[in-house]
């Protein structure tokens, strides 16, 4: 009669083991403390139960060494917990360099997912196991949250910008995908499934799905369809910046700041072109594409821009944006011409 009752969720990603470990350690430690306190109280209640109506207790008021101990020892333990938790957080928040990049759009009340090869899914996500997958996510309306309990990952999906999460499935199977941030009437219906499958099966799945073309090639199509190519020439001569080798490179903008051309910057530059103008270029040249280009198409255009730059997975030691340390080093390189310093080939299809 008990339908699949269990105490532990599936553990199916590379980080889930450590999260479980943390949970169990905390459980043991806290249980010991709680049982200790409870035992002391229950023992005292029984042992020192008021003998007669007028009895008073022991009148001791304080014990400084004892009090210092129970202040310092918990604090040290807490710092330990903090350090462990923070280390796990960095693992969970920072995607590895070799992750496959997929794009997610949340809207009331569904998940729309794009694979780099061009496959699109709604409320399902097929992924290979043993391969890190990075999700770049945005929302069309309210805040959602992409939550896969079996992977122990969760990330809010915000309107107006991208957020990122990643995971590497370690066990084939079918896992729940939930929306964890309350998003309106059918919040509880905004759920789906993650299918983690061996790499071979995943390749088969990819070939079965009828994709029009890869994300980058679709992006190229849109790049021409929306007229981007009219101004963004690949020769540094246009009225608009050259987009070759731009992705994840430092860019100096008109206020003098240097920023990294990440997904969020590219997205913002399509929807609000004047927000951050590249140094040396003029405002008001590029039209605002809000409402014209759909979020999925933006993701494809970004994939195209990315393909114009260093190849994904290419081992470039100076590739910025993989670690904070190299980010600092790259700052010095920044300048008005930073977008065209590399000599790598423009991809023509």
């Amino acid at each position, binding site marked *: 009669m008990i339908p699949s009752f269990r105490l532990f969720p599936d553990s199916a990603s590379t980080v889930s083991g450590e999260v479980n470990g943390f949970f169990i350690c905390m459980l043991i430690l806290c249980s010991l403390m709680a049982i200790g306190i409870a035992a002391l109280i229950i023992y005292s209640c029984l042992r020192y139960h008021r003998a007669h109506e007028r009895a008073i207790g022991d009148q001791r008021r304080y014990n400084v060494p004892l009090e210092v101990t129970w202040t310092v020892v918990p604090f040290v333990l807490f710092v330990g917990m903090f350090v462990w938790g923070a280390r796990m957080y960095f693992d969970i928040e920072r995607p590895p360099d070799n992750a496959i990049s997929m794009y997610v759009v949340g809207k009331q009340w569904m998940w729309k997912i794009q694979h780099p090869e061009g496959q699109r899914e709604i409320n399902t996500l097929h992924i290979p196991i043993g391969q890190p997958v990075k999700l770049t996510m945005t929302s069309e309306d309210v805040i959602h949250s992409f939550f896969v309990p079996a992977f122990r990952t969760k990330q809010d999906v915000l309107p107006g910008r991208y957020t990122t999460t990643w995971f590497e499935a370690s066990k084939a199977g079918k896992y729940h995908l939930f929306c964890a941030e309350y998003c309106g009437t059918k919040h509880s219906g905004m759920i789906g499934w993650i299918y983690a499958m061996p790499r071979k099966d995943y390749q088969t799945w990819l070939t079965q799905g009828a994709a029009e073309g890869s994300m980058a090639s679709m992006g190229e199509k849109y790049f021409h369809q929306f007229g981007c190519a009219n101004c963004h020439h690949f020769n540094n001569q246009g009225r608009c910046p050259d987009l070759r080798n731009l992705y994840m490179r430092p860019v100096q903008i008109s*206020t003098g700041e240097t920023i990294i051309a990440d997904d969020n910057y590219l997205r913002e530059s399509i929807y609000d*072109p*004047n*927000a951050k103008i590249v140094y040396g270029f003029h*405002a008001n040249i590029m039209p605002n594409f809000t409402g014209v280009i759909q979020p999925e198409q933006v993701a494809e255009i970004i994939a195209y821009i990315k393909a114009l730059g260093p190849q994904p997975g290419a081992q470039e030691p100076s590739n910025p944006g993989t670690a904070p340390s190299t980010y600092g080093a790259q700052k010095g390189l920044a300048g008005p011409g930073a977008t065209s310093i590399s000599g790598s080939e423009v991809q023509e299809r």
Partner: protein
Amino acid sequence: MSDPVALELREQFATPEQQRETASAGMWIFLMTEVLMFGALFSAYTVYRILHPQGFALGSSEMDILLGSINTAILLTTSLMMAFAESNAQEGNERWLAICLIAVMLLGAVFLYVKFSEYIEHYHEHKAPGFWFEDSSPYANNVQLFFVFYFIMTGLHAVHMIIGIGIMAFLLFRTWVGSFSAQYHTPIVIGGLYWHFVDIVWIFLYAIFYLPGLHR
């Protein structure tokens, strides 16, 4: 029982001194809630100004720095009048106390007049946020955000001013019926604290809305 102080002593207090200090502490605590209230708006404004520097600079350039400076001077003068009102109260000089209170109210009204004429000006220039907002610059949304904060913060300040004038009217009435004396004039001090505080808020509003407007 003819002592006016004794007449005013509330039953929960033992001495007039205790009553005066309690009232003053209560007012200061209230003012600290106001600090946090305006502080929340200052924080939000700062965040957005960092996120959208160009739009906020453009919005700020719509401000009339001359009117802002005049209004600042007017408010500072009301503060002086309020301080004089307190001195007169301490000396039991009810006539001059009343005159000072009237001066505070009048100058406060002038401030509000200038402020509202600015509002009307912004409205005619379609700078009031909402569906009647128009801006041709590429940063229209951010300019609107600037004006949202401008209207909420100065509007909230204006509401405080109106309440302040109401308090002054009440104090004037009580002066007129002879409630205050050299021994008992706590309400004047308390009302003054409120008035000066509203003045302080304006000093910061002036600094963040008007002053950055001369350079884009």
